[in-house]
């Protein structure tokens, strides 16, 4: 039995998650294979200043933003499709982004039209797959969830096959960089890239949160929502666009780290609330904390070698999710 959700307790949950998010942003940059002396950082002395500002902070911020984007995307797709397995992964959006990125890596492109080629590649890949999946499942004026999921999983396999194909034909040096990218890692990026990503994430989050009540109704059923006054076509379309922007952006910068999109929304749903007014913001905040924390753990456990954040997430999060599912269902 659950206590009624009042706006006060909702506020409590969101601010609790926000505090964790901020704590992670402050503490995690300090964690790493080499110690950081903050006095040297403030005095702008090498190497501490460089490591801290150029490497650690950007890396933690990227982890927070990308983890948040992927978790929010997962929560969104689960509401849209009323399927607890729906994530950017199962819809093929991740694989499309990965294929685009791998293609760019294989062709050894640095920049296209002034944009980082990797970004453009994954955006185009994600967008193309989403258009194909949505096009294939569009019939009679609306998109069918089952068809969408089946098409998504098929395209996921097709993209994976092409990635293997490309992997087979490129030379060794490039295949190494592809492997590195496919493992899914949070790495330092430029502040410009971070800024662009942050703006995109903020905008899409704002749009999605405004629609949170409509997402609750859609999570129950499409006709249920339509008959209660939800403008189904408009809300669903917004969901597809926002979901793919979030996913493609995150994957372009980190590689395919998918698990966070499955595990975090499920934890929030069973532990905090299925209400998307809470679920979406809490998933974003906790997803960010989780990915950044996994990356920090990956930096230190095997130092000086680094474990990719995706791998850490799977090792820690996997068993936990199995345990939660066993208890709840």
């Amino acid at each position, binding site marked *: *039995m*659950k*206590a*009624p*959700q009042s*706006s006060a307790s*909702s506020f409590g949950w969101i601010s609790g998650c926000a505090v964790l998010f901020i704590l992670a942003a402050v503490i995690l940059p300090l964690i790493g294979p080499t110690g950081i002396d903050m006095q040297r950082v403030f005095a702008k002395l090498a190497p501490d200043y460089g490591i801290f500002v150029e490497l650690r902070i950007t890396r933690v911020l990227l982890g927070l933003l990308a983890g948040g984007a992927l978790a929010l995307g997962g929560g969104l797709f689960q509401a849209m499709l*009323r399927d*607890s397995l729906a994530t950017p992964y199962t819809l093929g959006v991740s694989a499309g982004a990965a294929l685009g990125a791998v293609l760019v890596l294989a062709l050894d492109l640095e920049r296209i039209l002034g944009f980082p080629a990797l970004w453009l590649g994954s955006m185009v890949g994600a967008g193309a797959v989403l258009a194909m999946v949505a096009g294939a499942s569009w019939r009679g*004026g609306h998109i069918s969830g089952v068809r969408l999921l089946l098409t998504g999983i098929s395209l996921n396999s097709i993209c994976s096959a092409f990635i293997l194909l490309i992997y087979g034909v490129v030379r060794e040096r490039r295949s190494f960089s592809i492997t590195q990218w496919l493992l899914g890692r949070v790495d330092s990026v430029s502040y410009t890239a971070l800024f662009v990503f942050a703006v995109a994430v903020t905008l899409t989050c704002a749009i999605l949160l*405004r629609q*949170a*009540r*409509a997402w*609750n*109704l859609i*999570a*129950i*059923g499409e*006709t*249920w929502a*339509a*008959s*209660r*006054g*939800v*403008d*189904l076509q408009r809300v669903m379309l917004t969901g597809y666009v926002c979901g793919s922007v979030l996913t493609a952006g995150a994957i372009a910068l980190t590689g395919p780290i998918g698990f966070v999109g499955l595990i975090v929304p499920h934890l929030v*749903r*069973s532990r905090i609330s*299925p*209400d998307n*007014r809470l679920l979406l913001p809490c998933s974003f905040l906790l997803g960010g904390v989780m990915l950044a924390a996994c990356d920090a753990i990956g930096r230190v456990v095997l130092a000086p070698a680094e474990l990719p954040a995706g791998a850490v997430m799977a090792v820690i999060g996997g068993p936990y999710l199995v345990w939660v599912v066993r208890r709840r*269902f």
Partner: protein
Amino acid sequence: MEVSGVAFAYGSNVVLKSVGFSANPGEFVALLGLNGAGKSTILDIMAGLRTADSGSVRIDGRELKQWQARDRARWISHLPQGIRSELPFTVEQIVLMGRYAHADQWFESEEDVQHAVRAMERMQCLAYRHRSYYTLSGGERQRVLLAACLAQEPKVLLFDEPSTYLDVQQQLQCFSTLTKLAEAGALCVAVTHDLNLALAHCTRLLVLHDGHIAADTPVLGAAHDAAWLSLLSPRLRLVETPEGRPWVVYR
């Protein structure tokens, strides 16, 4: 509400050929017909959830297609046939969803909560308002969905088999509530297979057969003309109760 010349086909399977009737506030219409006759389909079309292949549905003189989703939901509430959800939404959260079209804010207002509580009282599910929907029995769930539709405060109620899963007492409660709403000026349309429940509560019977409205009779006249009954089954017969109401018995 005016329905005229509505046709609908699922692919090559023609369900509705030409359905037409009009209904006014204060009526409680029972929509009868065999399985697959298209009762749910015409109800969906009247609710704006499906678009007819041809023909039109007008409400308050305005073509249904021209209505904004939100305005439509303030007029019409549609109860679907059962909803399965594994999500841990509570009963109260589901009933509050009925207020979507009325609330502009991110959180429901005190007024929304009051409407929801009244609706839950009416459908006798207030006692378990904090339980998760997916832990409830079929009948308890049905009462929650009914409450959500009532909380919507619609002028037109389109209910697809509202008495499904309900125990006898709750079936009577559900139909009496609809009778009261109709008496207060709403238009209620219920798809049902329970003929006696319909005869005891409704004001009018519509029988859908072979893609048309094959019979359209006020309940008071239904006793004298049993033609509509033979459309449903040859084994039915009408008798009169000691109170003078028509009653269907089986042969």
